[in-house]
């Protein structure tokens, strides 16, 4: 990996300003959430003018944090190293970015329901998500200041190839966890399990889709004829073949357990994510 040691103060300054702004915005959100939670007790009536104005600034503050996520993601993708921790942080940034959208939804739900229902669950989620954004933004801002961490030239196609499989592996694990969470009935009533499972699966796959798109665009920009070299193609073919095996094992197991009364989406998604795990694990194993 080539390290660009040339001084680039403009880059770091920009990163510091964006990072500090994002941290300030999220700290502001947390403060306003805290004040709002106290003020929005059932039957508390309308908010004061000052509090209304403060809450109006929440969407722009979350948008600013979202823009920093995009900036950070762009920097991370350009400096992929192929290390697991690096790929994991890419996934956390994408995940945090997606959750920023759900913050707006939660705030909207709280606004509509606080007068009639108990919204403490939504507040707890909002605090947890904001703390998560804040942690991601602080780590990201710190990485932007470590010149070598995010100004290093990317490890090239190989780093992207490995990172794609790291993210596919994590997406697979998250997908399997999501399928079982939905089927357990712990998160939503079982009658909504199929829909919830699909939503969780889509969320688990968004980071993978994003990095696949980046991989394709990068190959196009660098005018690479193929996205993989011949050994990587060979490894991918072997991994694809091995990833077919769990289908037979799982179908036989489920048949033995007479579990076919469960929704079809359960089998389809479970098989898909298990195959993704096996596929990426084999590729990473062959590339170790």
């Amino acid at each position, binding site marked *: 990996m080539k390290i660009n040691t040339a001084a680039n103060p403009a880059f770091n300054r920009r990163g510091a300003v964006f990072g500090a702004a994002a941290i300030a915005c999220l700290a502001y959100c947390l403060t306003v959430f805290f004040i709002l939670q106290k003020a929005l007790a059932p039957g508390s009536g309308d908010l004061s003018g000052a509090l209304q104005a403060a809450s109006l600034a929440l969407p722009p503050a979350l948008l600013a944090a979202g823009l920093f996520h995009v900036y950070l993601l762009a920097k991370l993708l350009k400096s992929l190293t192929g290390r697991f921790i690096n790929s994991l942080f890419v996934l956390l940034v994408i995940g945090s970015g997606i959750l920023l959208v759900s913050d707006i939804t939660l705030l909207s739900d709280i606004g509509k329901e606080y007068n009639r229902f108990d919204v403490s669950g939504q507040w707890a989620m909002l605090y947890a998500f904001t703390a998560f954004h804040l942690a991601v933004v602080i780590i990201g801002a710190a990485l932007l200041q470590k010149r070598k961490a995010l100004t290093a030239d990317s490890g*090239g*196609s*190989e780093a992207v*190839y490995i990172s794609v499989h790291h993210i596919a592996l994590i997406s697979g694990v998250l997908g399997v966890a999501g399928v079982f969470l939905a089927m357990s009935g712990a998160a939503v009533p079982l009658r909504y399990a199929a829909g919830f499972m699909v939503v969780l699966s889509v969320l688990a796959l968004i980071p993978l889709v994003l990095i696949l798109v980046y991989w394709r665009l990068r190959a196009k920009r660098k005018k690479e004829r193929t996205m993989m*070299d*011949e*050994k*990587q193609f*060979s490894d991918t073919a072997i991994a694809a073949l091995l990833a077919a095996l769990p289908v037979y094992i799982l179908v036989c197991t489920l048949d033995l357990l007479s579990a076919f009364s469960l929704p079809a989406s359960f089998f389809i998604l479970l098989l898909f994510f298990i195959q993704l795990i096996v596929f990426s694990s084999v590729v990473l194993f062959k*590339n170790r």
Partner: protein
Amino acid sequence: MKLHNNIRRLRFEQDEMSQQELADKIGVSRMTIYSIEKGNYVPSTVLALKIAQVFQRPVEEIFTLLPEKEDN
């Protein structure tokens, strides 16, 4: 029969060329070069010819078929 290669030796003879430098010259990943050197991956004809081109040697001087016993 096993495919033996002299890539590692030839790299060092060429100003201690790194695996990454060789990989960049022939458009593959460093891991592919590592696997070829270790004998874990048998390159295609095109790749073998590209490697030969970099070292400016005939292919058979870089890759040779050896009986399994001799290799050990």
